[in-house]
């Protein structure tokens, strides 16, 4: 394993210290327990997210004006703990209500639930929204359900804008549920990632193989297959996304082509180019787009596609000003 680290156990701490030095104008970092908040807290609905580290810029890089109020980083690929979410929730709660935005993983759900129970005991109203957008996983009674992946980024932007303009808790929750119901994703990997603590790749894969439908923690996907041209990969991934969303001719969408951390932008734009063509052919208009590394999986090579059905309200929230380490426009 070759990595730019000092000590595998200090990676999260030193990343937070680096983020604070780089973005001290936007965020404040609390070190015991770990959480990141906006520098200034104003009265409004607060949005708290969090999850295992290793997906940067998610979530800490999305704390700031127009997006999250707080983020709780866990150890690499491990859910944060309830004391983090409790402290972060109390730090940003102004009495207007708090939303916990949770990605659908067993550990994240349980830890956020414990935190919400503790906060409820202190009379803080917490609404949990669980994002489960990964169409690579069958949503059935016999699994933990679809994983939460790329839609999380779009949801954080959209409900962050809603809270920022002063919408009340029920209105922000309504937009969150819209995002949950209308965003779908699928990813693929050329290589595994290597978590710093174990120092070993999560899965072995041949030089000419890909994992189609991979999760953001290197979880296996739908199928191990031979590498194909970019357009064929995009075709394979767009099909289940578009059919799950039941999009029809004339619909508008927000499309994200996201890098897993080890894939250059030059390849992401190749993929995006064809993804837009696929949508166009079905009469689906890509109204807004995002291409880059937004929800990564350490050093994994690969990409994911996220599509969210849009409407005028959603596009207005998408275009609203945002000023975070990882996303900034409109100011």
């Amino acid at each position, binding site marked *: 394993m070759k990595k730019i680290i000092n000590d595998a156990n200090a990676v999260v701490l030193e990343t937070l210290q680096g983020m604070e030095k780089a973005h001290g104008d936007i965020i404040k970092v609390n070190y015991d327990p770990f959480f990141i908040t906006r520098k200034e807290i104003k009265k409004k609905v607060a949005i708290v997210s969090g999850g295992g580290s290793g997906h940067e810029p998610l979530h800490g890089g999305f704390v700031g004006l127009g997006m999250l109020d707080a983020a709780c980083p866990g150890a690499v690929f491990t859910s944060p703990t309830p*004391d983090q979410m409790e402290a972060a929730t109390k730090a940003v709660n102004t009495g207007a209500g708090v939303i916990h935005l949770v990605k659908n993983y*067993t550990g994240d759900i349980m*830890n956020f639930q414990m935190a919400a129970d503790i906060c409820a005991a202190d009379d803080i109203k917490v609404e949990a929204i669980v994002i489960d957008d990964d169409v690579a996983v069958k949503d059935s009674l016999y699994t933990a359900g679809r994983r939460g992946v790329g839609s999380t980024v779009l949801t954080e932007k959209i409900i962050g804008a809603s809270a920022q303009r002063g919408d009340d808790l029920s209105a922000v929750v309504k937009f969150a549920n819209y995002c949950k119901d209308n965003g779908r994703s699928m990813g693929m990997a050329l290589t595994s990632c290597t978590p710093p*603590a174990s120092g070993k790749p999560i899965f072995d894969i041949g030089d000419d193989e890909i994992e189609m439908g991979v999760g953001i923690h290197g979880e296996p996907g739908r199928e191990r297959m031979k590498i194909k041209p970019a357009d064929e990969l995009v075709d394979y991934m767009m099909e289940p996304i578009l059919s799950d969303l039941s999009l029809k001719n004339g619909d508008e969408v927000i499309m994200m082509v996201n890098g897993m951390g080890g894939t250059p932008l030059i390849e992401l734009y190749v993929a995006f180019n064809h993804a837009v063509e696929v949508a166009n052919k079905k009469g689906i208009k890509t109204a807004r787009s995002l291409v880059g590394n937004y929800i990564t999986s350490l050093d994994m090579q690969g990409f994911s596609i996220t599509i969210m059905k849009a409407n005028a309200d959603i596009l207005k929230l998408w275009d609203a000003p945002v000023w975070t380490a990882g996303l900034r426009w409109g100011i």
Partner: protein
Amino acid sequence: MDCRVEMGDLMITLSNIHSFVLGLQAVYTEKKDYLTQLDSPIGDGDHGINMARGFDAVIKAWDAKPPIDIGEAFKTVSMAIIKNVGGSSGPLYGTMFLRMAAFVGKKTEIDLADWTSALEKGIEGIAQMGKGQKGDKTMLDAFYPALAALKSAAGKSLKEALSDSVQAGTNGMKDTIPMLAKKGRASYLGERSIGHQDPGATSAVYLLEIAADKFGE
């Protein structure tokens, strides 16, 4: 003197619980790589790392404020696990020890029946938190048979009963190999989860083994 009867009367003391907790730290540290290896094909490859980190924190918390009764001891374990393990093992083992703490209360020694009931409450907590059932390929598949063995141990010595629970738990753990996972990250694999031993059931068996080793000493 009838040795068997005397052993059967042995109590589990606060000092035994301390040895148990130290033993858990040692075993999870020793088995860190093995548990992580089990977790890699069907989970996210961090179970050993998280358990070792959690029990390091348990020992730190214990040393900072040594508990004065067994309920407090289990609560110390629970809080340190909840705050330091994360993932799903954190809330699951954390809830288990919290329920055990509530059941034991201020006692400074407990007998086999108390241990059995405490474990039962703890296991109920795991099942509620994880919404898991027998056969889902989880830690419950080791804990349920172990609990059944303890419950049918009437007349046996503490050591014998605990040893039976280890045997039953180990069989349950091995039974997870052909199972199809229905909970947690392993469930995403569907059929591909078959053929792998569940890491959670494995860490559960270590807990039973350390209890058998340290109680009745």
